[in-house]
């Protein structure tokens, strides 16, 4: 069923039982995490530690006219109250440049405590440093601030009219079209054309943002839960005007991220500033309210999806436009039409993204930016079209499944959504569904079933890796990638073990530290494949070096052999044609008098890194011109809706995904399932509520922002095709984000099937169903 592109590399062989990749190995960080011994940022104690707390602005826009810090300073144990009057000066953030992606690091452009300007309701305007966190927090409440208030735009609903279409750049999706969608729509026999909205949402990773900063002269050590330690290091070096080499950021364990810990936010910068100002080591652990006031979340969106079709369901026109929000001082728009460029074979397509700028906390990427909310609109609209046509929604999707990319005819590197839907429909018992709304019930529960397609485009980023092989047969892999929960270190352990033919127990992986070779961001579902690509290269290089050592010895059975004639296995290199002829790494290294041998991809030098980045970027653009590399999936959902109260309970779920090769089923299925559950939250309860008059978030905690709990959920079934992508090393694509895409639409479609009520505004709350 899989269409491989022409001239593709041969598909990697299916893993044999001896291989580590593909096996559900236990996490390498599991013992420490279950024993309670894994140390997160807030767990770090350093000598002479002081604690900091934030004071937040209470107006959306204006100028600070007065700061009364006397009461705060009078609290016993307070070391300093930092404001724009007395805080050390910093260098402003660098302007964004596509040539240096680390310029994207700052969550906002605000020069915290170096300015009297207020740009959003919640912006930090002072920092209290004290000898205990509680003292700092208590004193922070005593800082009195007066403002000259200026008019502010804080109502997204009202600001949509001022939205400006985005121009596409290397970093931003703009407008894309093929044919004339509006005209095709006007003449289509069947049309659905609706407006959908999604609210602001927050990542709410379980670990609140925290920073520990220690200065030693111009050298800075920072503990920080981060999805991009390199960004953090570069940004801090610039802001504080110190040499990059002297800044170290450590992030071995991160308590979840979902995009919220990729940028550098106010808390990080201000902790470092507080340490600079007081000469003390400073720790700041944000309260959940602090997080919501200073760490951007997902933008609200308004979207229009219009579909035109023939009566047999053949799509003739697909139009998807959307407005997302950014802050006046930064923020990232969501390309809600991303999936609509690739999912359906419509001859006329028009995609447009617009943004509106508000005086609010800048938005930030959250799991599957664009597709997570874009699929809600598109996949709801497709369901509405199925209803209008009187057609099964799976059949409608399969009728319009494209062979090539509908926008520009590029090939898909792999795409087997048909197989995902076929397997899902079979397992879920889709055929038993009766098509009419309100046709299935169980007592006062109305039962509904819905489907929706999942879609995501994983990114690929450069990575630097060193691999060290020791004479005792152990292997050390070093790369500053990030363990935010996905099982990254475990996956690379498996990749290295297979590449070198050693047991997984022999491999140690170091990560989350800027002293290590630079790794990719944990973002865009690209980290595992990006690191694996570099790691495989390094292992090849390492094996070549080992073979060179072996070939110097007259007694080596590998003498005169080329690497292509050998297989790595049993802790060494062996002849492919005579598997008993070969020797272990230990034998080779010991004979050569070497305790260890190490290789490094690219180079530690700036030039080496620039070349490597350029090579990776060129490869990425070449790939992007050649084919669409996407992961897809089919969600099947059953809901029960209380006929009289409108309570919605998800009662069954199955997601079948086409995500390329899976390195570790144990960790990968949890990634997919976690995405589904986050999507169920978005569908039914998650909403960051912003007072449109003041721009203030009114539910900055877990008591009022309802993420799903165990008791809300049925068994979430996850399945995947496990077919390698023929265009990537090991056939890997990326699994971190696709799970959440399509979920809210599957729920809303099932709710419609149950009740006959179409909800186009998330979340689907009780009162909307009565």
């Amino acid at each position, binding site marked *: 069923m899989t269409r491989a592109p022409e001239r593709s590399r041969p598909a990697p062989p299916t893993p044999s039982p001896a291989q580590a990749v593909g096996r559900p190995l236990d996490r390498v960080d599991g013992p420490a995490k279950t024993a309670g011994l894994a140390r997160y940022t807030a767990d770090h104690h350093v000598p002479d530690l002081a604690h900091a707390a934030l004071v937040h602005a209470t107006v959306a826009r204006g100028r600070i006219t007065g700061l009364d810090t006397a009461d705060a300073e009078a609290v016993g144990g307070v070391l300093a109250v930092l404001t724009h009057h007395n805080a050390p000066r910093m260098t402003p953030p660098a302007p964004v440049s596509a040539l240096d992606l680390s310029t994207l690091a700052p969550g906002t452009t605000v020069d915290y405590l170096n300015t009297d300007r207020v740009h959003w309701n919640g912006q930090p305007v002072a920092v209290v440093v004290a000898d205990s966190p*509680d003292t700092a*927090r*208590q004193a*922070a*409440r005593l800082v009195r601030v007066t403002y000259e208030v200026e008019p502010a735009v804080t109502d997204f609903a009202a600001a949509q009219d001022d939205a400006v279409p985005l121009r596409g750049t290397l970093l931003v999706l703009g407008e894309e079209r093929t044919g004339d969608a509006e005209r095709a729509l006007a003449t289509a026999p069947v049309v659905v054309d609706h407006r959908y909205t999604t609210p602001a949402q927050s990542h709410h990773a379980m670990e609140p943002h925290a920073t520990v900063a220690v200065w030693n002269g111009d050298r800075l050590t920072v503990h920080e839960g981060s999805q991009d330690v390199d960004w953090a290091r570069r940004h801090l070096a610039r802001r504080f005007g110190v040499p990059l080499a002297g800044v170290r950021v450590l992030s071995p364990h991160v308590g979840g991220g979902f995009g919220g810990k990729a940028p550098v936010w106010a808390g990080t910068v201000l902790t470092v500033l507080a340490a600079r100002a007081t000469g003390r080591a400073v720790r700041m652990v944000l*309260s959940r*309210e602090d997080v919501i006031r200073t760490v951007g979340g997902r933008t609200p969106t308004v979207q229009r999806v219009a579909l035109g079709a023939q009566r047999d369901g053949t799509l003739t026109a697909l139009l998807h436009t959307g407005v997302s929000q950014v802050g006046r001082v930064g923020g990232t728009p969501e390309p809600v039409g991303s999936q609509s460029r690739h999912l359906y074979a419509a001859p006329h397509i028009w995609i447009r993204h617009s943004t509106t700028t508000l005086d609010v906390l800048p938005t930030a990427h959250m799991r599957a930016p664009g597709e997570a909310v874009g699929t809600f609109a598109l996949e709801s609209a497709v369901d509405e079209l199925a209803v209008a046509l009187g057609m099964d929604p799976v059949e409608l999707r399969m009728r319009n499944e494209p062979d090539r990319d509908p926008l520009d005819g590029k090939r898909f590197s792999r795409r087997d959504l048909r197989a995902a839907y076929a397997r899902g429909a079979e397992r879920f018992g889709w055929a038993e569904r009766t098509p009419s709304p309100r046709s299935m019930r169980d007592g006062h529960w109305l039962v509904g079933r819905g489907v929706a397609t999942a879609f995501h485009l994983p990114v690929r980023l450069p990575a630097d890796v060193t691999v060290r092989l020791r004479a005792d047969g152990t292997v050390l892999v070093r790369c500053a990638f990030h363990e935010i929960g996905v099982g990254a270190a475990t996956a690379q352990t498996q990749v290295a073990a297979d590449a070198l033919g050693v047991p997984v127990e022999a491999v140690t992986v170091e990560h989350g530290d800027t002293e290590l070779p630079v790794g990719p961001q944990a973002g865009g579902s690209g980290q595992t494949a990006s690191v694996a690509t570099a790691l495989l290269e390094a292992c090849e290089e390492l094996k070549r070096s080992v073979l060179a050592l072996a070939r110097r010895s007259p007694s080596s059975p590998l003498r005169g052999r080329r690497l292509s004639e050998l297989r790595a296995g049993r802790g060494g290199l062996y002849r492919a044609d005579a598997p008993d002829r070969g020797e272990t790494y230990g034998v080779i290294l010991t004979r050569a008098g070497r305790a260890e041998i190490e290789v490094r991809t690219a180079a530690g030098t700036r030039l080496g890194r620039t070349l490597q980045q350029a090579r990776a970027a060129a490869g990425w653009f070449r790939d992007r011109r050649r084919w669409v590399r996407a992961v897809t999936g089919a969600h099947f959902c059953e809901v029960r809706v209380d006929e*009289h*109260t*409108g*309570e919605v*309970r998800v009662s069954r779920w199955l997601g079948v995904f086409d995500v390329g090769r899976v390195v570790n089923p144990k960790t990968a299925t949890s990634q997919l399932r976690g995405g589904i559950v986050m999507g169920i939250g978005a569908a*039914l*309860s998650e909403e960051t*509520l912003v007072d449109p008059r003041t721009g203030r978030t*009114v*539910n900055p905690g877990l*008591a*009022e922002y*309802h993420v*799903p*709990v*165990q*008791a*809300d959920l049925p068994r979430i079934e996850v399945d995947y095709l496990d077919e390698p992508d023929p265009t990537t090393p090991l056939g890997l694509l990326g699994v971190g984000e696709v799970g959440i895409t399509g979920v809210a639409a599957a729920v809303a479609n099932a709710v419609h099937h149950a009740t006959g009520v179409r909800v186009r505004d998330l979340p689907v*709350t*009780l*009162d909307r169903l*009565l």
Partner: protein
Amino acid sequence: MEFLQPATWEEALEARAASRDAVPIAGGTDVMVGINFGRLRPALLLDLTRVPELQQWGTDDGAVRLGAGVPYARVITELGDRLPGLAMAARTIGSPQIRNRGTVGGNLATASPAGDAHPALLAAGAEVEVASVRGTRRIPVADFYRGVKRSALADDELVAAVRIPPRTGPQQYSKIGTRNAMVIAVAAFGLALHPDRRAVGTGIGSAAPTPRRAPAAEEFLAGELDGLWESRAELPPATAARFGELVAGAAAPIDDVRGTARYRVHALSVMARRTLTWAWADYRKGDPACA
């Protein structure tokens, strides 16, 4: 901040009288949130968890006298047979960790309109026993709530216990929220049938500035049940529907982030009708101990 840990009830009352701005703490589910967030800085924290009398329940004068410090978890495991409505309400509160600490006394002292115990206490016809160095008084629970998070408790008084008549008939409790657990009620309703005195008790939560009864609904249903108590005949659906309407009519909700006023009124009518249907079915079956 001072931390006082009285070992006896007398000491507790004296401490309360001596320091009117002391903040009593038991399970900590409200007080500690305020302190953790820096919103609450009491001069004195009065820990009531070492007062033995508060940790006990017993029967007194025909009522269950539930010490103010008995956690919800014990209400569920120890009093499900006598106080089924309250036990059902307790099961919907927070999480197991919260139910292990939170108390009915704390729920009363906080007097939040969304407090989960209130509808059950109202339906059962409970009395709040409050005490100070001046003496002890009993307040019918319906008179205890005085406004949003305001109660009849004087500033030198502590909640000693709540006195709840044990069930003489079926009791039910229903709560609607956005999640299955860990959720503040969008609306809640408690119902108690009192066949012994041919009466009906109701309690409404999260749908008015205070928890409140629905007197017209109680009166209407008691009238309709006249004769049915003995015959245990089927209840006409129209009666249940009318009861629901009257309960809904007693509410005075607002729109807030958890739900609209309109939805709350509607939900109350559904919950009232449903709980009555369940309770009456139990009564007809001879009212097995249900909880």
